[in-house]
């Protein structure tokens, strides 16, 4: 048997019996889809419930036509009594609408009438309801304005100087993929989380248990040992990644995304393509962890260095959020950025050039292999057994 395979088999066997390695491999893949499901369900609830909220109104009798119009729009209203400000401060209501006594007078004279929307701008949960109501007011406004113009023999088009027509080239599926930007981030993060336990155990753990010296006495090249450990850790990372990906997609499929206008449908081949696109990251992430792991004196020491690595997967998604640059070919070759774009594109059912997969796989594996060789180099040093 080849030494790499001997080391690999031993590490897999050892890792499968290690609670810490298993926890780190399977905790995230189980947690992530639960988070995805919870988050998306909450978002949908907030958005849809905004349209079903009963609007508390003070002075309903002051604007009978407006109220009638609201009811025609399927908006539920109720008379509010008490102190509106207090009700908002006490978080009893999300908003209270006040229609002043002079509303009807101003309305009849065709003057601008004010209605007040009492709300708390710091409450994110109420924002959707407030926005929804303002939208209703705007629509009512436009309708009445047009009627007034027509009554005066003026075309309503006079005041509509320019209108913006929305021509969105993104498909519904692509819009959904953009809204689900956190999915690629979770998948990339899982590469770093899932292999972490075993990567630390086979490096810092080996030193902590004083098994490194006996191991290195065997007639095996150092790079063979490192590669065996790398492959074993990568199997853990890859398993966790595939689980995260598949479970997150399954969780999303359970969420009624259609209710917020997102068209989400993922086929088996799309899942397969995403797996192909992201798998190289498992190898890259563990190579970084092994490199840091051999520097660390103990398991805890390693955990604190490697914990910082977890920030790396956040970088591409932040970059893509703030940079409006169109996707360029070179981006596929940047580890993590490339895989992120690939996942977004595959999710959005966008045509992806086959080269992109090659770039993304090569960049991940080449960089990973380079780091492994650096690690093996450091393993050659005799100080490795002393530290």
């Amino acid at each position, binding site marked *: 048997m080849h030494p790499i395979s001997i080391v690999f088999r031993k590490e897999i066997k050892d890792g499968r019996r290690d609670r810490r390695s298993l926890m780190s491999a399977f905790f995230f893949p189980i947690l992530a889809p639960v988070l995805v499901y919870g988050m998306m369900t909450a978002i949908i609830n907030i958005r849809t419930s905004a349209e079903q909220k009963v609007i508390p109104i003070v002075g309903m009798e002051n604007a009978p036509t407006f109220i009638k119009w609201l009811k025609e729009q399927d908006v539920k209203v109720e008379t509010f009594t008490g102190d509106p400000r207090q009700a908002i401060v006490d978080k009893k209501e999300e908003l209270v609408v006040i229609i002043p006594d002079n509303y009807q007078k101003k309305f009849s004279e065709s003057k601008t009438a004010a209605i007040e929307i009492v709300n708390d701008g710091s409450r994110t949960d109420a924002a959707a309801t407030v926005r929804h109501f303002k939208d209703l007011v705007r629509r009512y406004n436009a309708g009445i304005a047009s009627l007034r113009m027509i009554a005066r023999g003026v075309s309503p088009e006079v005041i509509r100087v320019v209108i913006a027509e929305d021509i969105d080239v993104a498909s519904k599926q692509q819009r959904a993929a953009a809204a689900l930007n956190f999915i690629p981030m979770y998948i990339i993060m899982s590469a770093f989380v899932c292999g972490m336990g075993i990567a630390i155990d086979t490096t810092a753990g080996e030193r902590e248990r004083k098994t490194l010296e006996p191991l290195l006495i065997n007639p095996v090249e150092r790079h063979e040992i490192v590669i065996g450990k790398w492959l074993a850790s990568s199997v853990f990372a890859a398993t966790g990644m595939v689980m995260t990906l598949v479970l997150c997609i399954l969780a999303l499929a359970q969420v009624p995304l259609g209710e917020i206008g997102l068209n989400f449908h993922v086929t088996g081949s799309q899942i397969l393509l995403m797996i192909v696109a992201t798998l190289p990251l498992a190898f890259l992430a563990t190579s970084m962890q092994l490199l840091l792991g051999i520097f660390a004196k103990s398991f805890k020491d390693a955990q604190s260095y490697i914990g910082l690595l977890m920030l790396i997967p956040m970088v591409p998604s932040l970059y893509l959020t703030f940079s409006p640059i169109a996707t360029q070919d070179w981006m596929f070759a940047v580890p993590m950025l490339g895989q992120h774009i690939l996942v977004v594109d595959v999710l959005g059912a966008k045509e992806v050039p086959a080269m992109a997969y090659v770039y993304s796989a090569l960049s991940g594996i080449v960089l990973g292999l380079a780091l492994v060789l650096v690690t093996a180099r450091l393993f050659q040093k005799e100080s490795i*057994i002393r530290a």
Partner: protein
Amino acid sequence: MIEVQSLRKSFGEVEALKDVSFIAENGQVTGLLGPNGAGKSTTLRVLYGLVVPDEGNAFVDGLNIRQVPRQAQKSIGVLPDNQGLYVRLTAREHIEYFGRLHQVDENTLEKKATELIKLLAMESIADRPVEGFSQGEKTKVCLARALIHEPRNVLLDEPTNGLDVMTARTVRELIQELKLQGVSVLFSSHVMHEVSRLCDQIVIISEGTVVASGTTDEIREKSGEENLEEAFIKLVERVVVEREE
């Protein structure tokens, strides 16, 4: 056969080995005796290829450990200073792992592992994960994994350290057994009576220098002391005095 020629090694400011030379013949037990920090472990580490000397050479069965470290490592079995074990693997799995790393073929591996388990009287613990093993049980596992490839040279770094009487005796018997098989056994110790009882040759190191070597009688003669312990102390002190002058 193990041959060490004028080894010198410094770790930064510290000169761990100044001048160490000796030969450990086949079918003989050679004891490396010295106080703590004398350079015993460093010498052994040079021999099993983990430390590269600044000067001098070490040969295992004529193979220069600096030039062909992996080949030389194939013919040695080592019980190192660090007797770490993988807590989740069983005793047998440890033995098999090291056997495979030495390219012992699977059939021989199983047979040989069972043999060693029997020889070291560890049948009852062989298939238990080593977590929670006593020091004696751990040492047995380390010994078994060091011997699985039937090395012609065996290096033992303080093998009886911290062992109970029963296990220490097993280890001593094992050393005798290896000797009878014609193996060259080199072991370091600071336990005098053990060295005098087991060894055919003794090499005394102090402060990185070999201060005396030979049979027990020769050492006693050289120092002019009847008792080996007295001889040892006298020889070691001589070096310290010389250095201070």
